[in-house]
């Protein structure tokens, strides 16, 4: 036996342990250490942070969303544009977007995290549950620490929690719902239908913007048509499709299907195609995912009410910047009616998109819809607008 084998196993073991520990610590450190580097390349972390050029930034404006969706990508593009336009970098501020996992707890935890980190200057949040008091409390806690908090796209319940935030930027979802309802009604009438049932599909039925849209739609489409059901899919895309299938089976003579959130549009279009019932139903949807636009081009969607998340992004940066810098002039410019009812809302415009060709909605002979601040566009024109800003969806 060699001499070194007679070394008591203990020191050999202890040295081995040290090497092991050292190795693990080194790997762990190598993993975590780079996270501290603020010199992120332009490609940036996968979360889609809107990275500004490589100067180390001292503060952040954070846009907190609900989940993954091309809608938020368009918004992100708006954030980038806004950061450029209003030159946030020169004030040492980075604009980033944070995604949530679709739960209230996720938003609450994130708001708490923002509160415990000292480099957050402003937060724009799309609230996932309008009546959730815990989210409201965290928003207020943040505001108490001096962080500027506004809501964008998804607001809190304004009757109860108005004081949670000074301002809201986004679509007036009731108006949006009404717009879609009117469009649906006009389409149905032009097809000779004055009564029938319809089903509305959304991610959550108790989310503020979803509810507002659905109520607006119901109001505008009129009592001649019956709202048979509101189906929620909790942002699960395969569930969204299953809901459409279930609706078609349970109510065989539906006249219309209404998609409330962006991904409901392609779900409805594909399933009606799959079931071969396209001719029997009128399909109207919200928001313009790239795939939804293709469906409309192929004739599977009849009308689309499109928000302007790009604009929301730009305006969110503008407002946060103004609030942070104490720029009262810009704030008044954006919100001329402060103090009055609805004076805390900045509506980003709506568009009604219809397929190219003859349609009761657009064209020179179309009757006006009776709603302000709405742009009616045929699909090709809308696609041009998208390309102009480098977007694929809205």
């Amino acid at each position, binding site marked *: 036996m060699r001499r070194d084998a007679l070394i008591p*196993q203990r020191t*050999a073991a*202890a040295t*081995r*342990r040290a*090497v*092991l*520990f*050292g*190795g*693990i*610590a080194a*790997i*762990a*450190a*190598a*993993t*975590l*250490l*780079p*996270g*501290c*580097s*603020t010199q*992120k*390349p332009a490609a940036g*972390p*996968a*979360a889609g*942070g809107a990275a500004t050029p490589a100067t180390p930034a001292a503060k*952040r404006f*954070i846009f907190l969303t609900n989940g993954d969706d091309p809608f938020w990508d368009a918004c992100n593009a708006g954030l980038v544009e806004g950061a450029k336009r209003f030159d946030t970098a020169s004030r040492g501020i980075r604009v*980033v*977007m*944070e*995604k949530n996992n*679709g*739960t*209230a*707890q*996720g938003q*609450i935890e994130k708001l*708490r*995290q923002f509160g*415990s*980190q*000292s*480099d957050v200057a402003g937060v724009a949040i799309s609230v996932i*549950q309008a*009546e*959730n*008091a*815990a*989210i409201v*409390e965290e928003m207020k806690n943040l505001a108490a620490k001096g962080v500027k908090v506004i809501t964008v796209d998804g607001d809190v319940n304004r009757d*109860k929690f108005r004081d949670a935030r000074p301002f809201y930027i986004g679509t007036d979802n009731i108006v949006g719902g009404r717009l879609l309802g009117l469009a649906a009604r006009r389409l149905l009438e032009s097809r000779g239908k004055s009564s029938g049932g319809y089903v509305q599909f959304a991610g*959550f*039925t*108790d989310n503020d913007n979803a509810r507002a849209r659905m109520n607006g739609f119901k109001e505008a489409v009129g009592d001649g048509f019956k709202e048979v059901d509101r189906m929620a899919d*909790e942002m699960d895309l395969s569930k969204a499709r299953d809901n459409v299938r279930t609706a078609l089976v349970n109510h065989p003579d539906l006249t219309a299907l209404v998609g409330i959130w962006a991904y409901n549009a392609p779900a409805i279009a594909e399933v009606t195609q799959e079931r071969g019932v396209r001719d029997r139903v009128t399909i109207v949807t919200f928001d313009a995912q790239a795939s939804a636009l293709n469906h409309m081009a192929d004739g599977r969607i009849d009308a689309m009410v499109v928000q302007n998340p790009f604009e929301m992004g730009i305006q969110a940066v503008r407002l946060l910047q103004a609030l942070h810098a104490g720029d009262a002039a810009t704030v008044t410019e954006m919100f001329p009616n402060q103090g009055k009812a609805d004076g805390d809302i900045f509506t980003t415009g709506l568009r009604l998109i219809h397929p190219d060709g003859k349609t009761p909605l657009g064209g020179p002979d179309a009757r006006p819809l009776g709603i302000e601040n709405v742009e009616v566009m045929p699909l090709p024109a809308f696609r041009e607008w998208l390309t102009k800003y480098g977007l694929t969806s809205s």
Partner: protein
Amino acid sequence: MPAPHASPRGSFLLRPGEWALVAAILLAIALTTIVDANHSYWFRPLESLRDIARNTALLGIFALGATVVIIAGGIDLSAGSMIALSGTICATTMLALKPAEMIGFKPVGPAAVAAGCAASLLAGFLVGTLHTWLITAVRLPPFIATLATLVGLRSLARALCESTTAALTPTKNALVNVSDPFFKAVRDNVWIPVAVFAVLAVATWLVLTRTVLGRHLQALGGNEQAARLAGIRTDNVKWFAYCFGAMTASLAGLFYVANESVAQPALQGRGHELNAIAAAVVGGCSLAGGVGTVPGTVLGAIFLRVVIDAVSKIIKTGADVYEGLIVGVVVVIAVTFAQVGQIARGGRRLLPGALGLCAIPTLALLAGAIVAMTAGPRAGLAAGLAAVVLLGMLRLWESRTAA
């Protein structure tokens, strides 16, 4: 035959693995303080401490339940769904007793709150009984029985929520808002869940180490057949274990509802049972049963939450994308580290033969990928190479010592 190992003790001193956990927690905190660009732990310690304490308490409450079940030789996969069911039962009970107040966001009064909480805990007891019945009378393996309740209870909760709201409120709803000042007080005061957790931990520790029932639990988990033949009524001991597991999950559910001010059965607590099991295992529980301590689980819960917070502090934006990966890596490292003593003593090799050779590039790729995604390709490459070098050295060292 493995070499004999040291026996557990019921004294106040921690076992070596637990001291190692304490060291790991302190190391993680130190690392975060330094590496975080804001040095939030240094400048604003209280907020982070409060958040970590709250999250640890919430996790720890039902991690204690998981520990007892694991020590008894079973497993409970349904804790997350029990949380959802418990929250829903509490909210719907209050809704049924005081519908107008609940809908109107007004206080419902202490009686309704008490009824809601009692109903939740009772539900926990019933679910624990169901588990025990399935496992002892129907003879389902615990994995299967609790897998069934994992999916079943959540669905039950959703159905309960929708039917109750359909009956008592203007519209059918998938969640119930809870705004009573009692729950708000629980949400606002971190010390309440922390105190409840502390009391529960001490009580569980007492039972496990200093009562006949605790000894029977250990015996059952260590050798079920022998326990029965030693005159232990194993079915009753299991009943206690599973009821304790489900009732702690119920209690946690009440805190979840308070924390979120809403009972949302579809999503609440989803996947959280795995966090509880991870905390128990990192703290030294053996899934084979018979081994585990309360201090270990408490430390394991603290460790997990500290690591998750560290990830958020260091990778500021988009941290949750990496959270799962890092927690997974850390759990593996923690459990491996706990065995380092055994590895060194028993002459066991971490990188043996062809398997070890293949493991080196796999681990290096993993480390390199994580670093590349967070800090850019060059850092990633550097990390990967560093890993290859370190692991290669380890392998050479092992072959030399064994030869």
